[in-house]
């Protein structure tokens, strides 16, 4: 790393936080699908499954929002702080998920299989869903929920 590179590590990012925008958008989608996911959990595992699915979905959304918030706050301090925040944020969030699951694991209303499946499936599912919208528009802020893809012929007719 050269001297100019190390100095630029002390720069900060002052613009609006795209990570937070993406996380809030994921949370909205999560809230949208929550009733359906809880219903599926209730049908497969019963009332304990429904409660576990709700807790699992909540954990996933809080995890993503907390991740984006930490990144956004650290980026406003400096890029060096962002590097540290990414590492300690990873530890912190894994610790929170572990603590919550260990605290509730013996409760009668918890089904650990349903909880574990929900954490994996909703985390990956919501991310893939969000990626579909982000990759649709590469320009910053790169987030246009609800934007329909326009056919090339329509685009050319508008341009002409």
């Amino acid at each position: 790393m050269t001297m100019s590179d190390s100095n630029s590590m002390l720069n900060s990012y002052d613009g609006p936080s795209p990570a937070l925008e993406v996380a809030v958008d994921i949370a909205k989608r999560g809230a949208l699908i929550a009733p359906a996911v809880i219903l599926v959990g209730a049908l497969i595992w019963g009332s304990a499954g429904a409660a576990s699915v709700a807790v699992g979905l909540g954990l996933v959304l809080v995890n993503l929002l907390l991740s984006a918030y930490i990144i956004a706050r650290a980026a406003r301090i400096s890029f060096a702080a962002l590097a540290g925040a990414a590492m300690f944020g990873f530890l912190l969030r894994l610790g929170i998920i572990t603590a919550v699951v260990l605290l509730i694991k013996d409760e009668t209303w918890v089904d650990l299989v349903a909880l574990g499946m929900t954490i994996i499936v909703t985390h990956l599912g919501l991310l893939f869903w969000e990626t579909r919208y982000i990759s649709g528009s590469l320009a910053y802020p790169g987030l246009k929920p609800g934007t329909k893809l326009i056919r090339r012929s329509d685009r050319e007719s508008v341009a002409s």
Partner: protein
Amino acid sequence: MSLASNALMLAQQLDATDAKNANAAIGAGFAYGLAAIGPGIGIGIIVGQAIQAMARQPESAGQAQTTMFLGIAFTEALALIGFVVFILLKFV
């Protein structure tokens, strides 16, 4: 009495359930520990490269941050899978 004969006596006292629980506990510990190493390295690489991109091209910092956030979240899924395996081995 030697250490080996002590271990042998202890092993004879253990029944099949104890041995299964012990193996599950060891497996769960390894699963969670090993599953956290890979994502840790991956997140380090992602953040390092994104910071380099933001430092070199501040005008594209927003786009780099979006990509970095998604990269972190996808990589973290591996750690979550390891955590769920740990839970299932240890408590179910």
